[in-house]
């Protein structure tokens, strides 16, 4: 009996120790993250959400998923903006791309009483109730990367114009393979709404402008995994020997496709165009197994999001053609709340080394 109590106590102690230790460690290592978790932070003493007593804003930026290169790059940009502008940036999100987990993270941010929440929704509809709750608590709500439902956000930060982007990808593929022949589509997941938007817009564009292009099979899901994209591409190459082009959506898919093309030595026969990060694409751009990667700079997107959140918290308005440091001129759509960061960026053999994400 005595021993049981002893061990229980030891356990409770040990767990507490681990947690405080980790808390302190993360606070110190996380750069511009919160100061330390050892003592209650000054802005938290108020209790309910709303005003920040410390003078600096707490802005939370929630990605679809933490720990993938794309969102890691956006975290760097967001933290940089936090440093430049003197606001506290909280970067947190689900560890799996599940809307349920994302909603719970936002619930906790509301309890924490942050000043603004910028979210890249895994599913727009799923976030509407919780974002409305945030709004009712007096928190400024924005979306970034992927739009939420329009009436729950004050501002919607888009990296590119979807239509321009979708058509640009198709044009790049046609540049490589010509305007007739067989092509296939790889996608990160069948339920990813931004990928579906680009694919749908691209398909419409192909039907009206390049009617001689032939899609060999339905869009192929690759679960946001390079390995799976690689296997599926090998299958594709075997099944459709006349394939001339591959459009790969989501950042890992083009890499997997290029890897397969590289392995089979089909660099010249097959044009691979996709949405990938430049450093990952480097080895494949070098030998032409990946012809071009089209994307934007996620770090800039993170920076812009924090910048605009602070801009609104300060009581300012966003205007078309407004100059944002480190980002450039931004476009604001006539509705006054849709912001477009700029045109897409092409990462090619010659320029991919200029980027560090």
């Amino acid at each position, binding site marked *: 009996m005595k*021993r*049981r109590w002893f*061990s*229980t*106590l030891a*356990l*409770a*102690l*040990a*767990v*507490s120790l*681990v947690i*405080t230790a*980790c808390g302190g460690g*993360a606070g110190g290592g996380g750069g511009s993250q*919160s100061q330390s*978790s*050892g*003592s*209650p*932070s000054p*802005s*938290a003493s108020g*209790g*309910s*959400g709303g005003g920040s007593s410390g003078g600096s804003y707490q802005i939370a930026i929630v990605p679809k998923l*933490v*720990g993938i290169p794309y969102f890691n790059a956006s975290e760097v940009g967001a933290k940089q903006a936090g440093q430049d502008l003197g606001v506290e940036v*909280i970067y*947190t*999100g*689900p*560890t*799996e*791309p*599940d*809307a*349920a987990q994302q*909603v719970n*993270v936002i*619930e*906790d*941010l*509301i*309890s*924490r*009483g942050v000043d603004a929440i910028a979210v890249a929704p895994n*599913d*727009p*509809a*799923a*976030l*509407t*109730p*919780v974002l409305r*709750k945030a709004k009712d*608590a007096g928190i400024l709500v924005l979306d970034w990367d992927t739009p939420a439902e329009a009436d729950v956000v004050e501002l919607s930060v888009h990296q590119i114009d979807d239509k321009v982007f979708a058509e640009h990808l198709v044009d790049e593929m046609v540049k490589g393979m010509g305007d007739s022949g067989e092509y296939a589509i790889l996608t990160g997941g069948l*339920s990813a*709404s931004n990928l*579906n938007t680009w694919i749908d817009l691209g398909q419409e564009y192909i039907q009206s402008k390049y009617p001689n292009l032939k899609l060999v099979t339905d869009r192929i899901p690759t679960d946001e995994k390079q390995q799976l994209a690689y296997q599926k591409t090998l299958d594709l190459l075997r099944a459709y020997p006349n394939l001339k082009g591959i459009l790969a959506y989501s950042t890992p898919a083009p890499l997997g496709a290029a890897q397969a093309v590289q392995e089979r030595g089909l660099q010249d026969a097959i044009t691979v165009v996709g949405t990938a990060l430049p450093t990952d694409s480097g080895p494949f751009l070098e030998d032409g197994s990946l012809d071009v990667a089209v994307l934007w700079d996620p770090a800039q997107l993170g920076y812009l999001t924090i910048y605009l959140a602070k801009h609104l918290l300060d009581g300012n308005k966003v205007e078309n053609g407004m100059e944002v440091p480190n980002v450039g001129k931004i476009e604001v759509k006539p509705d006054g709340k849709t912001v477009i960061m700029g045109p897409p960026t092409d990462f090619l053999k010659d320029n991919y080394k200029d980027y560090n994400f």
Partner: protein
Amino acid sequence: MKLWQYLRLSAYETTLLAVFAGLFLLFSLTAPNFLSAANFRSMMVQLPELGLISLGMMAVVLTAGIDLSITFTAALSGIALAWCLSHGWPIPAAMLAGLVTALLCGAFNGVFIAGMRISPIVMTLGTMILYEGIALQFTKGGSISGFPEAYSVIGSGSVAGIPVPMLIFTGAILLTAILLNRTAWGRSVYMIGSNPTAAEFSGIRVRSVLMGVYLFSALMAALAAVIMTSRYNSAKVDYGSSYLLKSVATIVLGGVSIQGGAGTVKGVVLGAAIFQILSSALNLYGLSPHLVDVLTGTVLIFVLAVNLLNQKWKRAPRTRVPPPPEATEAKVPASR
């Protein structure tokens, strides 16, 4: 007297309670806004989905099985519910449709596992993929939304300050506790998990008990689906998919033996509560979400390790059936 017996905690549950209390105290002192009413409400809204799925998973694991299809059963049930709602069905009818869908999923598992003795892990792995496929085919990967305003009350409303999801979860806890501890079916579940052969020879109708277990887990999935569709105002294939392995972790933390036969509702509820305060508090600190996973894993392994040491110290053989006074009565079940 009876009630007091009911609330008595085993050694392991005492450990869990101590861990819970320790963490609670620590977070109250250090996590910003942890003690606020808003945070408590928020935690009570977050907890029930994982809690319900864990209860369903628990019943299956007690029989030495596992239900890998439980989250996609919930997804499919939610999608059926959402489809009905968005096509103008009245709310109770739509909920019934969701329930029926879930029970069909559960019955399908049950028929093969109980009837044809297919290993549960293999069967539910198959149905996990199958149900996901059906849901994907039906929705084309998109989400279904457009519910009547009144439906959102389930996810966002509260009665006497307690959020509706928590009330549903409380009801489910009571139901599970009564079914497992106060019915012949419940005792048979433990018996089958401890020793299926002995259970068979002592006259338990293993097939129908097992069928009941998979139907029960489907029922819990259906309840979780109701909460999820209301909270997220939509239904989609992958809502709640992250709860699958978390529910297994929750019940293991709650003291359910993965080999079956042992485990209590109290333990599972405590396990779910520990995970909830842990993840909420770590979010309140603003820690990296990866650290949240690291700490969740650490707590799980710690508690299990201490439990093992405890048992070694006591040098008592592990009792597989918990020491219920009614265990002996249950050996002569009504199912004869």
